[in-house]
């Protein structure tokens, strides 16, 4: 089905924003300006955006440690995100969470998660809320190939199924859980596992926004209409290492370069829409430029804004009086 011109622009802009954001974070991290651990999503944009284009604020997603892309795809503010990653007081989480815990519940983004497999049970909860309070919302867990082996993930498949929750599990398989290939670590298949729990399951090429978008529509509609949970196995490639600082020597020397040349999601999208005369190169180039400038601005603001102070250390441990 055809997306509107506005939606096409929105989708491309989101993907480009993610790419610029992650590249900027990579540069800043390499320069020693970012503390802690970051895990970059560059190369996987079509997956997050393809899914989240269908979602509203009432829908909830949970991410992995590789959460920047999902955060932007769900509509979180990049400025706040960048400040958060730099540990600044005006960050999305007050500088208290950082890259691995980046979240905005007001946008239905339940957080990146530092614990592999942390998201799926939470999303069963969000789906339970939607079902109990009849909000019509759905809840989506983005899971990595690594997380697909955690017990919590399997338990969540089962619970979502037996409770018939409006939940969706998106396994973003980038081929490697840290340095270990998913070809080795995953017994059976992702689709087979989903079906094993009684869920409809499909496999999708994550370099193709439109393929992801279509597949996501099906699973989201199913969940929203009370048809229960589904599993989507999205094959993607991460361009950077597992974490920043990982030289990724476990990959073949030209693995990433080859993928970038033929399957880069932004290029795939550009080729598709220009060939179909839906958008022209000039429009896309302008979006590229706009996003780059926006992210540069975000970095500059993040660098110049202040750190939290000791007064912030003990706030927000509790909500009710302690």
């Amino acid at each position, binding site marked *: 089905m055809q997306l509107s011109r506005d939606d096409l622009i929105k989708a491309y802009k989101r993907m480009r924003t993610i790419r610029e954001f992650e590249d900027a974070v990579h540069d800043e991290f390499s320069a020693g300006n970012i503390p802690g651990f970051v895990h970059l999503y560059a190369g996987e944009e079509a997956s997050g955006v393809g899914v989240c284009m269908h979602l509203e604020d009432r829908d909830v997603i949970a991410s992995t440690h590789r959460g920047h892309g999902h955060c932007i795809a769900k509509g979180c503010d990049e400025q706040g995100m960048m400040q958060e990653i730099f540990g600044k007081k005006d960050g999305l989480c007050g500088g208290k969470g950082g890259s691995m815990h980046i979240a905005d519940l007001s946008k239905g983004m339940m957080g990146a998660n530092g614990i592999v497999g942390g998201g799926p*049970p939470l999303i069963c909860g969000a789906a339970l809320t939607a079902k109990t309070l009849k909000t019509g919302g759905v809840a989506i867990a983005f899971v990595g190939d690594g997380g697909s082996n955690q017990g*919590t993930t399997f338990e969540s498949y*089962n619970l979502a199924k037996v409770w018939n929750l409006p939940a969706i599990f998106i396994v973003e398989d980038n081929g490697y859980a840290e340095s270990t290939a998913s070809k080795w670590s995953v017994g059976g298949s992702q689709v087979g596992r989903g079906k094993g729990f009684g869920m409809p399951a499909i496999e999708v090429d994550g370099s193709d926004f439109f393929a992801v978008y279509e597949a996501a529509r099906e699973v989201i509609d199913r969940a929203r209409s009370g048809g229960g949970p589904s599993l989507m196995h999205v094959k993607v490639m991460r361009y950077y290492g597992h974490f920043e600082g990982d030289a990724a020597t476990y990959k073949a020397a030209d693995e990433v370069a080859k993928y970038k040349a033929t399957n880069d999601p932004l290029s795939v999208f550009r080729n598709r829409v220009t060939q179909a005369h839906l958008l022209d190169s000039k429009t896309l180039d302008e979006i590229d430029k706009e996003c780059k400038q926006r992210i540069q601005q975000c970095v500059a603001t993040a660098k110049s804004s202040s750190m939290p102070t000791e007064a912030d250390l003990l706030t927000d441990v509790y909500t009710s009086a302690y």
Partner: protein
Amino acid sequence: MAKKTYRQAINEALRQEMERDHRVIIMGEDVAGGLGAPGEQDAWGGPLGVTKGLMPKFGRDRVLDTPITESAFIGAAAGAAATGLRPVAELMFVDFLGVCFDQIFNQAAKFKYMFGGKAVTPMVIRTMYGAGFRAASQHSQCLYPLFTHIPGLKVVLPSNAYEAKGLLAQSIRDDDPVIFFEHKAMYDETAEVPDDPYTIPFGEANVTREGDDVTIITMGRMVNFCNQVADKLAKEKIGCTVVDLRTTSPLDTETVLETASETGRVVVVDESHPRCNMAADISALICSEAFDDLKGPIKMVTAPHCPVPFSPALEDLYVPSPAKIEAAVRAVMGKG
């Protein structure tokens, strides 16, 4: 005022809170029972019948039986709480925390802080603790010190039926993750419990006995043993102040220090294992803040450093008894 059991008081608090707020739901293994089975529905009402009668009243949309899948449903409780429900999940035995601790201590406990204040996680986990049932090492532990250790959690130990109803209502109305510890040996014990709904604040210890000679600081089931000892020693003119902490997190440090300073002789009674437990925590607090008021070392009465044994002969040696508590009080009086 009617006399009710610990079990009835907890059931009543759950029922009244569910009547008051449609967002309060219950989930856990066999909290009703019979799901998917051809026979009786609400067959169990929880392993010891605490939640019986709630599913027939509120339906299976608000009283949810789960598969045996702690990490999923405790995690679901956390996720549901962060998105608008007020779940009361049952971790059947606290000993099972191993299969779902991440969801409690890394997820629920930390949302508020990690997300810069923008999350609210009003979740309650009810769990059974304590020895004396011959349930052996994997069904008899206390473990509340582990939860007390985690910033972002609140930990509640009601010592009788009156306390249980008020503290559970407070737990459900509190907007933070609360772990509510029910001692499995107390379910049939009675106290006068008002029919009306009421709450008891967190962080306010209850002084159950007053005396000038020794301060006994304790929590949960042990409060009743300490009261027994205090009443017995009162006849010998040894005056004991007994402090029921009610909540180990938040801790009523003011009352702990005040009562310790008043007598200068302190016994801390804690059913959990001795390393890194509440007794150690409270003793350190008193020593650092009220050392000059102490007339001698603090005595801690705890379980020994071993798993809970099965044999009744051994388990009876394991649980801190009134006799052991009395001996400790006499010891700090120099009359041991």
